[in-house]
């Protein structure tokens, strides 16, 4: 009985005062849309950094030899790498796979020497999964699948050695049993614009590292997933398949500095978003209070007519709920398209960043794509409805206090 009375009245009340209803919904909607956009933006900014880290070589997840995390020893190699590779490929959501190995050594030309970490790669896979190689400006060419005895170095190294494409470098490194040396012909010089990155690039074919060091097989398999949200699931699945053989780590383990950065940024922005939501909530509360206050006579009349306190409360709450739903709809209407635009077109912050597109050894793609998805709907509903309903509790209580005599009084 209560429900039906309240419900009918609530609906009709809303329709009878369209301006008030729409105003409320718009007010709630705008605030809620702001929260939506703020969250979408924050997610996008964090994602940009994760993308940068994972696509600059870390991968989303990575298979490494057991113990590598602790010691970071270059000489460690994967156990049963062929089988591991197959298992990696069978994990759902895998987009690109890159195998690598590393060795510390010296590159020399004439009188000049430079210490480097030589990275053995699979050229095609590296192109696909490492944006440093794909986006850096290249003099000469990158490695091809069959290349042996060829090297691609960063511009800093080329400058320090005073060499150019087609020059032969003398490389020495400590292999498994002895110190070995070989000649490497430069086929390409990469310049990314970041001094640190350019000083660390020294790519050769995986087979060359094998031959030079005497250690067989790759030292890591880096995996790019379709989306960073799949990381946790993929890591678990892969670890299960590997069954203790080798270890599966994430980009955060590979680059803890950047991971901390992402977390910190996220935390800061979360505080801001929280403030936005609080402001929205309080704004809604204010509006609801105002609405109830102005309708004191109306409630007084209802009370005089016999409506009980509980029904009045139900009435106010129900109205609030409807406004909340309407507000959610408005926020999706207003914020949805903007969020969509943000997610597809993205906002380029390139002009803000100037030339230096790298932070902490990763190459940034300076476009923020807002996060977009069904979560928007839940978010809008959640914030909107919660705010309006919670904000209506006190006004609802107030409404029950309206004395019938107030109905007669002129405001």
């Amino acid at each position, binding site marked *: 009985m209560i429900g039906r009375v309240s419900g009918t009245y609530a609906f009709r009340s809303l329709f009878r005062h369209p*301006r*008030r209803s729409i*105003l*409320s919904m*718009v*007010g*709630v909607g*705008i*605030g809620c849309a*702001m*929260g939506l*956009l*703020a969250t979408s*933006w924050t997610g996008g*900014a964090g994602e940009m950094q994760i993308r940068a880290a994972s696509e600059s070589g870390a991968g989303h997840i990575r298979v490494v030899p057991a113990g590598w995390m602790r010691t970071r020893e270059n000489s460690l190699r994967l156990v049963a790498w062929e089988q591991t590779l197959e298992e990696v490929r069978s994990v759902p959501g895998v987009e690109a796979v890159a195998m690598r190995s590393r060795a510390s050594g010296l590159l020399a030309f004439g009188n000049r020497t430079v210490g480097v970490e030589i990275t053995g790669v699979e050229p095609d896979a590296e192109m696909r999964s490492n944006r440093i190689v794909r986006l850096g400006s290249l003099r000469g060419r990158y490695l091809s699948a069959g290349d042996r005895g060829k090297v691609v170095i960063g511009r800093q190294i080329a*400058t*320090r050695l005073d060499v150019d494409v087609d020059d032969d470098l003398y490389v020495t490194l400590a292999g498994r049993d002895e110190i070995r040396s070989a000649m490497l012909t430069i086929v390409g010089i990469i310049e990314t614009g*970041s*001094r640190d990155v350019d000083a660390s690039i020294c790519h050769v074919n995986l087979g060359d590292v094998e031959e030079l060091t005497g250690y067989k097989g790759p030292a890591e398999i880096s995996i790019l997933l379709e989306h960073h949200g799949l990381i946790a699931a993929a890591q678990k699945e892969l670890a299960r398949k590997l069954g203790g053989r080798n270890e599966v780590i994430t980009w955060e383990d590979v680059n*803890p*500095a*950047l991971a*901390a*950065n992402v*977390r*910190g940024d*996220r*935390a*800061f*922005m*979360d*505080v*801001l978003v929280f*403030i*936005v939501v609080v*402001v*929205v909530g*309080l*704004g*809604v509360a*204010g*509006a609801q*209070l*105002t*609405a109830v*206050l*102005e*309708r004191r006579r109306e409630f007084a009349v209802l009370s005089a007519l016999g409506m009980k306190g509980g029904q009045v409360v139900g009435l106010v709450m129900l109205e609030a709920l409807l406004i909340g739903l309407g507000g959610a709809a408005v926020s999706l209407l207003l914020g949805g398209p903007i969020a969509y635009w943000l997610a597809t077109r993205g906002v380029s*912050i390139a002009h*803000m*960043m*100037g*030339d*230096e597109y*790298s*932070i*902490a050894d990763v190459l940034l793609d300076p476009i923020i794509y807002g996060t977009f998805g069904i979560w928007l709907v839940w978010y809008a509903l959640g914030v909107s409805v919660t705010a309006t309903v919670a904000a209506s509790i006190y006004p609802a209580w107030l409404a029950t206090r309206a004395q019938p005599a107030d109905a007669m009084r002129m*405001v």
Partner: protein
Amino acid sequence: MRASTLSIAWRNLGRSKRRTLLAIGAIALGQLTLVFVNGMMAGSFDDMLRTITGPLVGHVQIHHKDWPEERAIDLYVDGLSEVEAEIEALPGVETVSPRIFSFALAASGEERDAPADAEPAMILGIDVVAESQRGGLLEGSTPGLLAESRSVALGSVLADRLKVRAGETIALISQDVDGFPVSDIFKVKVIVRPKVEVAKNMGVLMAIEDAGEFLAMRDQAHEITVQGDDQENSAELAQAISSLPAIAGMEILTWRQAVPGLARIMDMKNWIDMIFLGIVFVAAAAGIANTATMSTFERTHEFGMLLAVGCRPVRLVRMVLVESVILGLVGVAVGSIMGTALVLLTSHTGIDYALLAGNAPPDMDFGGMSISYVLYPRFELRHILFGVCAVTITSILASAWPAALVARLQPVEAMRS
């Protein structure tokens, strides 16, 4: 505007206290939020700026022109004592901090069963007094700590790898400025966790005199950072320094030129903060507007009555405007006081948003320096002024347009609603 409008407006507000308080509340909340968020962002920006332009990079940097690219030990600034004297003589200079950098191998000097493994390390010869201040590499330590000759502070990660504790000795093997091998033992006085990543991972910090002695660089340094009284004047300071005779041939950079990447990251954060501020403002404004508009519309009946007894529409609108101005000013005043109080309070206690980031995260890495998760908002008068304008205008507009709408109605219609 006639006095009567004002008094009517005033009485209107007094008559419906709840409505008035609500309106003031919404406006105050908006202003409070703006002041506080602005304060947060200013504090965050400050923290980063202070970390960068602190003793680390300083306001102005001086070094050999090839040094940033090559970082070779023999690319130094010569005649250090004279250079320091000339710079210190300039007006507005607060600290002059020279540094020496050199790679070395470090190993524990303590007795072990087997020979200790050597680890790569970096010798940082620094001005101990300057670096013991806020933002310096030895922040928090007493300057007299490394007063004893051949005593060092070790970066925590390096100390870990070497398995060395404070009070023990380490051996350092290196090459001096001419390339000759040098080795010596040093006493580890303290383990530090400086904000600069490389210093934490590999740093062996010692007084620059000791480093100069060890590396045969007695009157030289690799890098000199100068701090003036205000980082805004960095360019002028750099200009003044470049005209000093002792500096001839050296490269002089302002901090923005020295670490352009970081400078740009800061600018970017500024932009993004503004966007967020905009979002916060719109949210607050929505609340204010909602409240103001709602209450104005709810008074349609009242307005109808006024129109019916002969009040001209223009006067009606004027009355509403005056009301909203009063509300706006009072609300902004209240909000400003509360906002300022909140900012001042948190600028002492700090806001620890690490709680949101998960338990005990490592310090954030910001271009090689750690930034902590505790934020100290800063108060600035212009934050309040911004709010005053924006918020007051919002509340006025939000009341004016519904009032104008109502004023155009027929009195009878108005009274009926």
